[in-house]
């Protein structure tokens, strides 16, 4: 009896490991199948690999760029192996396109005094550039899953750090209540909170266009 028990105890970790391996293989298989379809389509697509803490821009299976994820919090568990579509991007301050002013048709403006100290060092460019992209925003996938992106600033002071910690605390307090609300309405609520370096957060907003396809490997 003791021998049998010992054998069973010895086999228990192996069987758990095997189950984990199967789950991992299954998830990988689904993702590869979905990626194969996307890679054949000639479109750009994004792979958000949460266990590896990275976002990759890909086309035809080729990695074009890779962005690191500094930290990650997840809520809920959406389905695996689905090619999602970016349905909506929302930010507190959306970047705005400027309208080209046609000579002879400029709107009349009162002359503003030019202050020497405020003149930028480089050439003045009327354009929408990466610096105009937001650092904190929400990406909503077509199944309702939210990817909340926050930027981590290198030169952030004490107040910024405190604000970030308070925001994170607020996230953990409010998510359960939002989950209950969605449950009562018959929906499931899934959200990922991603922290990226500042420039990378702006770059993701720039490149990840509405309607783009993406694959997500959940943790």
């Amino acid at each position, binding site marked *: 009896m003791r021998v049998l028990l010992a054998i069973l105890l010895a086999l228990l970790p192996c069987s758990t490991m095997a189950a984990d391996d199967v789950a991992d293989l299954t998830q990988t298989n689904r993702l590869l199948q979905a990626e194969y379809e996307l890679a054949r389509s000639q479109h750009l697509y994004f792979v958000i690999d949460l266990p590896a803490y990275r976002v990759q821009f890909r086309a035809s*299976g080729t990695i074009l760029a890779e962005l690191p994820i500094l930290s990650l919090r997840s809520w809920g568990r959406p389905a695996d192996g689905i090619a999602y579509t970016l349905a909506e991007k929302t930010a507190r301050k959306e970047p705005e*396109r400027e309208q080209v002013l046609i000579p002879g048709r400029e709107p009349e403006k009162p002359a503003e005094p030019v202050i020497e100290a405020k003149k930028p060092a480089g*050439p003045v460019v009327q354009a929408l550039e990466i610096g105009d992209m937001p650092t904190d925003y929400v990406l909503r996938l077509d199944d309702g899953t939210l990817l909340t992106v926050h930027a981590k600033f290198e030169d952030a002071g004490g107040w910024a750090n405190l604000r970030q910690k308070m925001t994170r605390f607020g996230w953990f307090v409010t998510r359960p*209540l939002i989950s209950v609300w969605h449950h009562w309405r018959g929906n499931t609520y899934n959200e990922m909170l991603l922290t990226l370096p500042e420039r990378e957060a702006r*770059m993701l907003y720039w490149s990840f266009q509405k309607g783009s396809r993406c694959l997500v490997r959940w943790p």
Partner: protein
Amino acid sequence: MNIDGKHWTGSRIVGLQGQSPPPEKPPRRWRKWILWGGLALPVVIFIGLVGYGWYLGHRHGDAAAEVAVQDDKGRPVPPDKLAAANARLQKKIAALAPKGQFVVIDTANNRVYLREGERILREMVASCGSGNVLVDPVGGRTWTFDTPRGQFQIRSKVKDPIWIKPDWAFIEEGEPIPARSSERAEANVMGDYALGIGSGYFLHGTLYKRLLGRNVSHGCVRLGDEDIEFLYKTAVLGTKVMIF
């Protein structure tokens, strides 16, 4: 006499007569419990909701991943076959990658890369689309000056290109659109070389070299003289161009 030794006043004695006695208040101990209960109830409800929310947020576990991949007959695929299938899929995806050299354009950082597999052969500073909007005040037509994203290929290679100015170029300058197409031609503005990727978009040289690295173009990708010459001489027709 009352317990303090003072006399009752007559009016008070009269006032008590013929009236129902005042309602009995619960004992002090119970009042305390009711008060605390009233205060604690919202807290308990809040904690309960948060706890239930946590359960909802974490109950899925790995259930989604545990649903087995099935074969054609609906039977779960064993792990060894699954691993082999994954290896095959990886090979099929890798086979879709461009063969030989290809061009990658990063519109956010205004960079162009000539790559071969994972290897970067040359990194070039560029000017991509400004993202500005031009509205035709007469016809109401609208143009957005973005560099298109996606996969393209080099369709044409031109030395000493001549720019055939589109309508927006005249509208932007506040000039009338010419009736004859010969009036649209303008030399020496696209540099010495141009590589066409379709739909009127080109990788070409520029007169505005100090703006390289900024988003200032009308959608084309501007490069410095040496870089566009290098690309013209290196990239063959059909070379893949991936823009993100």
